């Protein structure tokens, strides 16, 4: 059933600079994780996305959350109930 999602995760891992990717549903249950994205962090990632959405309730497009650290960035976006997080090293402008 999850072949299509597995393909998306694997394709994303193959992109340059990506070290991990994770997908979760609205309840924070992990749908798939690759690389250095820990499956048990799915709850926190979903919460972050939900809270960011609450900041601007009337926005048309869902917000993108970016966590910056020395070792890389985590990009989080929720769309249609699925939250995706990409762990990557920042690429140039």
């Amino acid at each position: 059933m999850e072949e299509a999602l597995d393909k998306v995760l694997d394709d994303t891992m193959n992109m340059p600079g990506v070290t991990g990717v994770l997908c979760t549903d609205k309840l924070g249950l992990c749908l798939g994780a690759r690389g250095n994205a820990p499956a048990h962090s799915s709850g926190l990632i979903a919460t972050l996305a939900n809270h960011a959405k609450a900041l601007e309730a009337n926005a048309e497009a869902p917000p993108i959350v970016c966590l910056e650290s020395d070792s890389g960035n985590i990009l989080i976006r929720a769309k249609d109930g699925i939250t995706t997080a990409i762990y990557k090293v920042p690429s140039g402008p």
Partner: protein
Amino acid sequence: MVEAFNYSQELKQYLHRIIRRVDGLYAIIVSDRDGVPVIRAATENVPELALRPGFLATFSTGTDQASKLGLSRNKAIVSMYTSYQVVQLSKLPLILSFVASSQANTGVLLGLENELSDLLKDIKAAVDITVSQ
């Protein structure tokens, strides 16, 4: 003895801090397999029936039977209701139970297991000796 009394209080305050931190979490209960509470923290939003030993103890039967499904030992059971959800984890001889709103983040509740593992080790030491008496 004053210092000893504070341990229970400290534990409860710690559990209450966690409850405040997680949206929609109403209660955290650490109990034995029959549902008798060892330590618990609850807000007034929690349905009282969910704190009763008869309710919490259903997990013991559930986890025993679930371990027979061919997927090796059962670790956790999440029960979703219309307005509430109950997340229970098997930490033998203890049961760790969370009662929350159905909109609360289940992944975060399951992740609290790691955070509470140190605490549970201390409590297990207290219960083990009592149980064997």
